């Protein structure tokens, strides 16, 4: 990332960050900043609300209106903020555990309401902050500190989950596919309604080591090999798809009303009845 972007968007004195060498979270944070920069938004008009986890620490490094809240609870707080000030661009940063385990209920309801938030889920397939326990997005058959004999739970397909719940924009990219990551975050921010971007990240310390993934560079290479651009994915057979996942914009629809706009109609109806 360009030095001037660091200077412009990162808080002076807050670096170095707490992420381990080889962690993908910095790449995703950088992608968010580059997407915001391309939008040209004023820093005063952007809020970054995060939960708790390694990923959620991103909010503290960034020079916007920021909050590092509670584990799993960023979406409700972001929803109240957006309702109170719909002009703010509200971006939510969450981890795979934060978003889909403890915060899973909030996720489906924020998606169902179609409130105009951009949710970026840093998916490193593990609970990083607490040292390597399995999350609902740990691939089945993986090792974790709480699954020494391998996980038996199926993992979520997060964009599909969000889409089914009513999210009007879903996308996925990886920290290897950086340009795509910036693009899909930017499109999500432009989308009016609830957007979910799954950003596949690498946790060499707590996932890679337990699962013998090799050096951080090899974990990036794993992303290159397993993340398949949607156009190619659509031409693949079920057998070819096994173990892989599509990347790109996975769904987008404009037929549903955005929540804060729909609420303005509630206000109009209430006041017309006075």
């Amino acid at each position, binding site marked *: 990332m360009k030095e001037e972007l660091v200077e412009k968007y990162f*808080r002076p004195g*807050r670096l170095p960050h707490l992420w381990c060498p080889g962690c993908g979270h910095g790449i995703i944070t950088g992608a968010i900043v580059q997407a915001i920069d391309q939008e040209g938004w004023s*820093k*005063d*008009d952007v*809020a970054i*609300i995060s939960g*708790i986890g390694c990923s959620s620490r991103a*909010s*503290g490094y960034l*020079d*916007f*209106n*920021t*909050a*590092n*809240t*509670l584990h799993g*609870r960023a*979406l*409700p*707080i*972001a*929803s*109240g*903020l*957006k*309702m*109170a*000030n719909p*002009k*703010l661009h509200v971006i939510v940063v969450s981890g795979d555990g934060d978003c889909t385990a403890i915060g899973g*209920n*909030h996720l489906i*309801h924020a998606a169902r309401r179609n409130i105009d938030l951009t949710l970026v889920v840093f998916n490193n397939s593990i609970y990083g902050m607490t040292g390597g326990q399995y999350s609902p997005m740990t691939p089945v058959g993986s090792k974790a500190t709480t699954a020494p004999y391998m996980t038996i739970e199926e993992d979520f397909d997060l964009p599909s989950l969000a889409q089914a719940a009513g999210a009007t924009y879903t996308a996925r990219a990886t920290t290897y596919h950086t340009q795509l990551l910036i693009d899909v975050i930017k499109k999500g921010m432009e989308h009016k309604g609830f957007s979910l971007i799954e950003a596949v990240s690498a946790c060499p310390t707590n996932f890679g080591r337990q699962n013998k993934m090799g050096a951080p560079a090899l974990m990036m290479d794993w992303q290159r090999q397993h993340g398949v651009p949607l156009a190619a994915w659509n031409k693949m057979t079920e057998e070819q798809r096994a173990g892989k996942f599509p990347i790109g914009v996975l769904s987008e629809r404009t037929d549903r009303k955005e929540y804060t706009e729909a*609420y303005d109609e*509630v*206000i109009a*109806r*209430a*006041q017309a009845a*006075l």
Partner: protein
Amino acid sequence: MGKVLLMQGNSAVVEGAISAGVRFYGGYPITPSTEIAEGMAKRLPEVGGKFMQTEDELAGMGAVIGASLAGVKGMTATSGPGFSLKQEMLGLACSAEIPCVVVDVQRVGPATGQPTSPSQGDVMQTRWGTHGDHWVIVVSPTSVPECFDLTRRAVELSETYRCPVILLMDEIVGHMRERIELPESYDDLPKFPRKVPSCAPEDYLAYRDVDGTKVPPMAPFGSGYRWHVSGLVHDETGFPKGTPSATRTSQDRLRTKLTDRLDDIIMTESYRMEDAEYAVISYGGAARTAYDAVDAAREQGIKVGLFRPVTIWPFAEKEIAGLSSKVKGILVHELNCGQYFLEVERAVHGKIPVTLYAKYDNESASPEEMLEEIKKMTGGAQA
């Protein structure tokens, strides 16, 4: 001259909130608090405010915190089971100093308990429910007009001291209908504006005490003052800092910003206490029985009065300790097995007998029953 209405306590809370400038509500319905959610759903959009029925009580409380960050006054209401769910968020509001009002209309507990029956079993939970040392303000109304007034006061206290304020109600005051006089218009009532920074944005430190009140000014998100909210122990910058000295400094300010101002925060009522030789201490819905019982005792020549804490927490330590040098005995009446009683005992410190009249059987006490308890305390003493 205002309008005279027959109104339920829960509805008076709604009107109190609207009149004080609350413009956001997030919550999940639960008996006996539901009328507050229903009332806010109707009234808020009429005044340009917003209501959200959230997926659960955690989200309701979270949304209120989010709205408050944008500078919009927020409120949520619930009862025991939902109040338990809100505890973690309550701690975030304490730690990050985010003003908000939380109404707990108590039911009998634990668990689902008895939804439509009166109880005051959450008294200690309001004080110690969220984990960690923390300080909150809790106020408890006894009548429908007081539901209106104390909701307004709760908003004022939360904005003044940058902390969550709990309006502790019970099924009696929540569901009871009573006469209330409300102003025709709320326009002229105070709206308790939040203290905002006057320095340049680049000089703003979100948790710095700039005026000696120990309550830092709070800039709304989006107002050009970019700051960081964290539930981690933080220093005056708002960024995490967990050193022993930073932790102590932060804890001390969070505590003393309230304990320095007890004269403003602690509200009490004394009824027929001027010449009293004995005192009943009771609060919230339970105190309604006490007024009648005191009157009945007085008719029989027993010099007893009612001391009613309106502010439950912080505890009226000085006032109750003072009481113990004026009267010969104290009877604490509450609708639980004895929670506030423990604090009264502590403050009285064995100087005079303190007895408990506990009622925890889904019903409020009758004045006759309470008169018997008063007589037990006075030993039939008469003037």
